[in-house]
């Protein structure tokens, strides 16, 4: 595919599992009174996003709060209805799915939540929490316990039986996040969307959960979207990264290339801003203007141009298209041949 072709892949694996074409999620803000005064505004949470995900690929959706990464994840799982564009999963348009087909889709595409303490009903034992999806999928009661134990083993909870009758508050954050992962995997989905799955966990246990995520993904051949604001974590789990800013894709390519040599000026600032646990690191001022823009009133042309140190005449007048630049795609006029820069 035109995406990141960085390693030889067989044709079946390279066929996209998910295709997103010009997807939009626009919210109308303000109530009837603002509308009467002509003051209602539109927030473009996701605005014309296109990408494809191959089978077995892990893609990081990276960006700061409000960039649309979580909205994009919700659109993919049809937890949110797109206001424009198309999402196709295994050849079927997700946007059109109804009832039984939607239920089947929900079993194949799962969400791993951010906060494990919110994701599991505190009144449900672990057994009950994991039985629910099996029950909904019509798995006979006799088979359920075996499936539950298998799922808990998959996420490396030692001696799974001892957890079955426990309640969420009796588990540590790391253990509970593994239970949340087990619940997402118990119906053997093809596709998972993990939304900042370790942001609530302490550093010393976070690594364990990430390792389980990588391991399970490889063993089951999962296709995964990992949503995060943390490039270091995305790099740990995803071979490819999509950088979003104000509802748009800025850069899309192999994670390692993005870390080593970010092309889009926004990605450059983002990479430079990540602190590292080493005493010797750059304290140079970031190459970015201060102040996040108002999402109700984004700049014309390129949405990043008011903070961009390289902005020129073309940036306020024309929205940059996502163009192929070497191994990646970049939405920046600097990388347009007709501009002749860089």
């Amino acid at each position, binding site marked *: 595919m035109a995406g990141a072709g960085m390693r030889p892949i067989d044709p079946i694996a390279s066929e996209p599992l998910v295709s997103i074409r010009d997807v939009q999620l626009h919210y109308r803000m303000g109530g009837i009174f603002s509308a009467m005064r002509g003051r209602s505004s539109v927030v473009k949470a996701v605005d014309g996003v296109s990408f494809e995900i191959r089978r077995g690929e892990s893609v990081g959706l990276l960006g700061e*709060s409000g960039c649309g990464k979580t909205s994009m994840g919700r659109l993919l799982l049809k937890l949110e209805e797109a206001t424009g564009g198309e999402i196709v999963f295994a050849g079927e348009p997700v946007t059109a799915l109804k009832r039984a087909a939607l239920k089947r889709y929900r079993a194949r595409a799962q969400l791993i939540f951010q906060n494990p303490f919110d994701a599991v009903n505190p009144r449900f034992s672990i057994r009950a929490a994991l039985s629910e999806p099996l029950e909904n999928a019509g798995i006979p009661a006799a088979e359920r316990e075996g499936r539950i134990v298998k799922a808990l083993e998959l996420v490396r909870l030692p001696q799974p039986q001892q957890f079955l009758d426990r309640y969420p508050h009796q588990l540590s954050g790391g253990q509970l996040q593994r239970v949340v992962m087990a619940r997402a995997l118990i119906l053997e989905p093809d596709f998972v969307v993990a939304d900042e799955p370790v942001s609530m966990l302490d550093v*010393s*246990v976070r690594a*364990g959960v990430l390792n389980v995520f990588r391991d399970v993904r490889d063993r089951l051949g999962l296709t995964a979207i990992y949503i995060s604001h*943390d490039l270091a*974590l995305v790099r740990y789990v995803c071979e490819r990264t999509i950088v979003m800013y104000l509802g748009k894709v800025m850069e899309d390519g192999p994670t390692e290339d993005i870390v080593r040599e970010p092309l889009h000026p926004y990605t450059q600032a983002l990479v430079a801003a*990540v602190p*590292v646990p080493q005493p010797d690191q750059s304290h140079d001022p*970031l190459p970015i203007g201060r102040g996040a823009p108002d999402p109700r009133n984004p700049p014309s042309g390129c949405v990043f141009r008011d903070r961009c140190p390289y902005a020129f005449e073309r940036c306020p007048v024309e929205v940059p298209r996502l163009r192929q630049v070497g191994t990646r795609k970049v939405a920046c006029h600097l990388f347009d041949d007709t501009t002749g820069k860089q």
Partner: protein
Amino acid sequence: MTEPLLSVRNLKVSYAVGGGSVDAVDGASFDVPRGSILGLVGESGCGKTTVARAITRVIADNARITGGEMIFEGTDIAAIPERQMNALRWRDIAFIPQSAMNSLDPVYTVESQLHEVLRRRGGMDRRAAQARAEELFEMVGIEKSRLRDYPHQFSGGMRQRVAIALALALNPKLVIADEPVTALDVIVQRQILDQLRELQAMLGISVILVTHDISVVAYVCDRTVVMYAGRIAEEGPMEAVLTRPMHPYTMGLRNAFPDLKGAASGTLTPIEGAPPNLASPPPGCRFAPRCPFALEVCTRAQPPLRELASGHRVACHRADEAPVLRELAVRTETWLVPA
């Protein structure tokens, strides 16, 4: 070396919980040198925030300072009456909370909140307070026209700048910042840390920065105190603690932390298990149950905090073997099965 601005000695803080009590901080001792940033680092429940709050003596209703001293400029602020302590707050010791939204009153403009501090606590008249408010906004890089705005009109990063301005209002000597950038995006986080560092150097003040993030410590701190389960594991110059850690817990933290500058193929190694329940902590070293290097003595006797290099202290029975342990600690297999 000149006398430190603050010396905390054997500080103990207990919480009354369900009839019993839990020692959230169990004998913490460290110095805050003048004109420096000290990073107080550790994971949830390690006692770092409790230490920070104990220094301001604004602690939870069920918490009590049960022992130790806090010598601030020659005075033991753990022992002085509340009235005297209250006079120090804001004037000498100021606090920056994690979420500025919680410290700013949503129904007043930030200007009126600055005025309240400057006039009530600082004894300034209206005109002096206005001039100072404008000066403070300039210091933290916000246009003074925004003084009339309400907290909700500021972005998260801007609110944190307002919180810094408020903390600096009366020229304190010590600023305690509790996870001041945790809720912020990386770019804003970096800009706020730069601002904090710049102001600290310009004003020559001392800062205690409470954080769970060792990369934040690496970015701005001069010294660092690593806490684990209510005790200090290791304390010393930031560079020494992060590059030549002597406590296995610090070594483990380094392994578990992703490093964007490190090799792409690097594996993160977790520390198996979880911190102990402080209602019934293990005897001996509190890290022993998760420590791959624990010996029999570790499960029995609490290791004292010993100085092993200049200004670098560690509480570990095997600290003398630290160079060898460090080599073992970088290997993933070392951490697979705790001893």
